[in-house]
């Protein structure tokens, strides 16, 4: 079992992000404890992805602060956020076509490696030890996510369920403190959802990552999340234990409309 320490891994206070005149996210406070699986729900366009983009530096927040393990990372460039220990997957998949599954996952180790021109030129002495070391860690994750049989295949032709799993593997090999999963189960059937949920729980239990999970499948949210935050029109409408949040009248209204609507 995981123990929830008191020191939060991720703290967002008063996040606001505007695009021109549109306020995509406003006044969002969020605290994720170490080892927690934290759900983020809300109807389409409610600002879930914008919030993750604000955290990871793609669209820095106009107001508010983001703290990672106590360190202020507001507005830090995405590649630096990655180096600080945040990994994420994308809603619409962001694998590199034309590369094998193995190479895609190896790219997840980038922040732990030191690629350069001279290392490439003197491969046998300068790069091979590092490549082999990192490959071992990649192989562990490949085994963990049961991707052995497709290791050398190009990612282009894989079914979506496997692509999502490869993307999760790529995020996990970075050994992040904080893992942000943007709809990892979109388009999956019940069985694939079950597998994915198990992988996320195991990643938390065995690897100690904290997870921010964006999902529309409420059964998954109730099943694996410790706490949940619900957004609507960029504002927080409810937060707490999943069972309570899904019963909250404002959440129900946001998803299926109120009695007057």
């Amino acid at each position, binding site marked *: 079992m995981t123990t929830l320490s008191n020191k939060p891994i991720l703290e967002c206070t008063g996040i606001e992000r505007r695009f021109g005149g549109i306020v995509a996210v406003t006044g969002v406070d969020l605290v994720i404890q170490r080892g927690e699986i934290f759900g983020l729900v809300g109807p389409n366009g409610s600002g879930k992805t914008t919030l993750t983009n604000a955290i990871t530096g793609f669209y820095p927040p106009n107001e508010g602060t983001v703290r990672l393990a106590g360190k202020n990372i507001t507005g830090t460039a995405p590649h630096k956020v*990655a*180096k600080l220990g945040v990994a994420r997957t994308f809603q619409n998949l*962001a694998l590199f076509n*034309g590369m094998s599954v193995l190479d895609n996952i190896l790219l997840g180790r*980038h922040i732990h490696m030191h690629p350069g021109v001279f290392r*490439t030129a003197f491969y046998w002495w300068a790069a091979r030890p590092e490549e082999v070391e990192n*490959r071992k860690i990649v*192989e562990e994750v490949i085994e963990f996510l049961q991707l052995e049989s497709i290791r050398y295949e190009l990612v282009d032709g894989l079914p979506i369920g496997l692509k999502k799993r490869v993307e999760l593997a790529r995020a996990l090999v970075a050994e992040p403190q904080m893992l942000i999963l943007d709809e990892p189960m979109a388009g999956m059937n019940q069985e694939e959802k079950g597998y994915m949920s198990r992988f996320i729980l195991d990643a938390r239990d065995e690897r100690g990552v904290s997870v921010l999970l964006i999902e529309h499948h409420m059964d998954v949210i109730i099943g694996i999340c410790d706490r949940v935050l619900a957004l609507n029109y960029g504002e927080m409408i409810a937060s707490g234990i999943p069972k309570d949040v899904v019963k909250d009248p404002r959440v129900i209204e946001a998803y299926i409309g109120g009695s007057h609507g």
Partner: protein
Amino acid sequence: MFYRLSGVYHSSLISDSRMFKVPADRNLAVFLLLIGLAAPFILPSLYLNSYILPWLIWTAAALGLNLVTGWAGQLHLGYAAVMAVGAYSAIHTVRLGVPWEIALIIGGLAASVIGSLFAFAALRVKGLYLALTTLAMQFVMDWVLTHSPTISGGSHASLQAPTLALLGQQITSDAGYYYVALGWCVLVTIFMLNLKRTGLGRALVAVREKDFAAAILGVNSFYYKILAFAASSFIAGVSGALLVATFYFLAAPEQFSVNVSIQVLAMVIVGGLGSIIGSYFGVALILLVPGLVNGLVVTASEELGMQVNVETLAHIPNAVYGALIVIILMIEPLGLGKLYGNIRDYLMTWPFDQLRK
């Protein structure tokens, strides 16, 4: 049948990260290298130095452009200008009394610096805009070369390259020039093969494919684009210097003009973006096929007793070779390298095709 996959198992991570994972590929590479080494004893020196030698040096240059265009995905229309920087810097350095080995490196580094200036444009603009920016820089370089007598000796002048000397040996024989070219081409090829299996190569492909996804993995696309331009410019600079030292013997601005840039880009695209073997094929097609077609047309017209006037004779090879490029790219947009790959993959399991996944 020709390639045997059966019995090829990699039982360690080191063996799984070999340059050629299939023994047949490795044997073929070794065989070709041996032929390359024996070529001066097989081929008459006319063929060796007027066809094979430029083919090798242009292949090295094309591989450099492939690094920036094929791997990092940055369109570059000013590559010949970067080669010119390397060539002129190296020659002037040698004329100052510096040994050729150091002069070649200085030429490469000078090209790297100028080439990285191209990169700063690449950080701001993408795609067609980048193509135009690099093209503009090619024109700037052309102008600088033709208008600064201290560099090129003026618009119609050419600069004599001092005799090539490496490791204390003056190189004046045809075989000597050839081995220098072969050595450089092999070095660049090995670098590119290593690029395929290291983090640098993966990071460049990541920048090319999806820069936002690269960023969240910690890949600084800013840095890697500059690195790609710098490394490719180094290769361009040394290739340019060697081209003058072993083939042209005189450096003149029109050897590195805009149509040369386009020609190198054509070599890379016909050969296949991101394909190493493809660059060899692409350069062969662009560089050698016009001459071959010319020879064929002349022979054919003589055999058939046709009277072909000189003007038509000059244009037929160009037309044939233009058509050839179009046909190849229509059959396989990824170029000759991909065509070779298709045949290789087919023969990999032939005649047991059903074993293929």
